[in-house]
């Protein structure tokens, strides 16, 4: 039995009394952003990636469904819509479609945390000596990377067919979509982590995440809050202004169509405001997800 070498990592003294003084320092080290934690996070992100591309139907549905939405709604509503800068609905709906791709992919990546727990994979991750944050970082980075690449593929098609002009602002689009990917994945984790069934996740998705997308100015413009607006418009407008995704959408729209002046639209926060809110959106959802995961012991035992 030479392969099973003597167990390593045993402290020289096994008496609990002598180990106790070191406890606090050991604990701090493992909670800090240790290299082992990063390696674990990287491995979990890579795993998301491998799993995603092994399931071909997931790859296809994440792009084809929004594409169909875009073509159907864009063509169908074309005649009855004129947006800012004389945009038709096909053009208006393009940023919303890209956001939908990011949202869908992020959701289906984070929903896997429920499957991981049900299939048992998560239990071996949760008893590993790396703590919780690598799980979150791995899932969010892995999911966001997949969402980003899917959005890029779609964006490539958009530029290829000339549905939007290709300018240097494409780098801004890439950064913005990466941030949106992180925000959506963290949001997905907040929803998925305490859940023990995918059915529950679908309910939240239809009641929370889809309306969030619909009410971000992706599908119809945000109504003005002025004297002429009706009571319903006021409520809807207020909700949509409170939605952080709305600010991401305004900026995405600006970057996709740099030649069009959107200042005249009912809702046009400045570039700086849009970027700040997008960064905060991503940071706060991630922070909240981390706090949630750190605090819940219950989820460990849901096997």
């Amino acid at each position, binding site marked *: 039995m030479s392969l*099973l*070498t003597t*167990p390593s990592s045993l402290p020289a003294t096994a008496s609990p009394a002598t180990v106790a003084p070191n*406890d606090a320092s050991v*604990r701090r080290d493992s909670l800090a952003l240790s290299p082992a934690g990063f*390696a674990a996070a990287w491995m*979990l992100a890579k795993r998301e990636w491998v*799993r995603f591309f092994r399931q071909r139907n997931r790859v296809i549905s994440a792009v084809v469904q929004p594409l169909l939405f875009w073509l159907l709604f864009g063509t169908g509503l074309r005649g009855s819509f004129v947006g800012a800068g004389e945009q038709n609905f096909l053009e208006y709906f393009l940023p919303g479609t890209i956001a939908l791709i990011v949202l869908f992919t992020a959701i289906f990546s984070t929903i896997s945390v429920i499957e991981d727990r049900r299939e*048992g*994979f998560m239990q071996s991750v949760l008893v590993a000596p790396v703590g919780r944050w690598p799980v979150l970082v791995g899932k969010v980075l892995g999911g966001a990377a997949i969402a980003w690449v899917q959005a890029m593929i779609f964006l490539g098609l958009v530029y290829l067919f000339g549905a939007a002009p290709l300018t240097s602002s494409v780098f801004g689009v890439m950064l913005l979509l990466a941030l949106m990917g992180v925000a959506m994945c963290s949001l997905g984790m907040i929803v998925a982590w305490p859940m023990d069934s995918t059915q529950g996740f679908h309910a939240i998705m239809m009641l929370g995440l889809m309306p969030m997308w619909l009410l971000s100015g992706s599908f119809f413009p945000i109504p003005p809050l002025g004297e002429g607006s009706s009571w319903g418009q006021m409520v809807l407008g207020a909700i949509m202004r409170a939605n952080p995704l709305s600010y991401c959408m305004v900026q995405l729209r600006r970057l996709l169509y740099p030649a069009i002046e959107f200042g005249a639209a009912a809702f046009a926060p400045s570039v700086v405001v849009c970027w700040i809110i997008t960064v905060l959106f991503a940071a706060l959802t991630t922070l909240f997800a981390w706090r949630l995961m750190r605090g819940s012991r219950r989820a460990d035992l849901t096997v």
Partner: protein
Amino acid sequence: MILNDLISSTSSTDRIVCTGVHHRYGDREALQGVHLSVVAGEIFALLGPNGSGKTTLFRLISTLVPVQRGSVVVAGINAQSDPLGVRGRIGIVFQSPSLDKKLTVDENIACQAALYGLRGAAMRRRRDEVLELMKLTDRRGDFCEKLSGGLKRRVELAKGLLHQPPVMLLDEPSTGLDPASRLDLWQSLQSMASAGVAVLLTTHLLEEADKADRIAILAEGKLIASGSPAQLRASMGDGLVTIVGSDSGEIERIVRDELGLVAQKVQQQVRIQSPNAAALVPMLADRFGDQVQSITIGRPGLEDVFIEKTGHRFL
């Protein structure tokens, strides 16, 4: 203080030491003061029926659940103050599979390696070793969903052994395995133990616990007996007569009052412990005749230890 005595008496070969462990879920007390120690190089079976508290104890030792009262020390590290330290020193095989079915055997082990801080050449070398040890080398490229139950369990063992832990914990490891795979599993466990690993497993199967070096029997959150299988059986004496009949209450009364023997009634059975059990049988047969269905004689097994202590049958 008994507690302090126990701690100070821990020797350097102790790998798991539980002292006065209590645990409650709301109002229900799952563990009521469990003392237990597992030393290096032994296979220790935690035997108990479902709901006896063995899974709770397993979770406490594996730091999945925080220690409420008492202390759990694993490989010299206190589970309460440094759970992550404990985690680095234990290998765990869960009752339910923990493999990613969409990944290959190699990829699953690489995942595990990343979680335990193994990388690069060291990881690949160690992976080759555990795959070889678990006789999985020719299956390393297979997707885990394609593997049989026995093979999957071997991959789990390979994962648990990867970081060379001094303590191995297994929760009902033979669940869902066919007899050949069980034999395989036990060979693996024995080779681990002979390499100096402390192996703790939970089981609700008596015949499985019988194969361990030492056993602790849990019932309703209490440790009711512990020792080697031979010791436990020896504590029960040599012979045991079991009388099965429909009116066990009446039989018990007769045995106790008329024949003056010590008897224990368990459901439909009346059990009599005696060093000369064989001599009792003709006398009992004579006295009861058609009143009973059977009178059997045997050497006490582990189930008898359980019945003796708890007054009811094991399962």
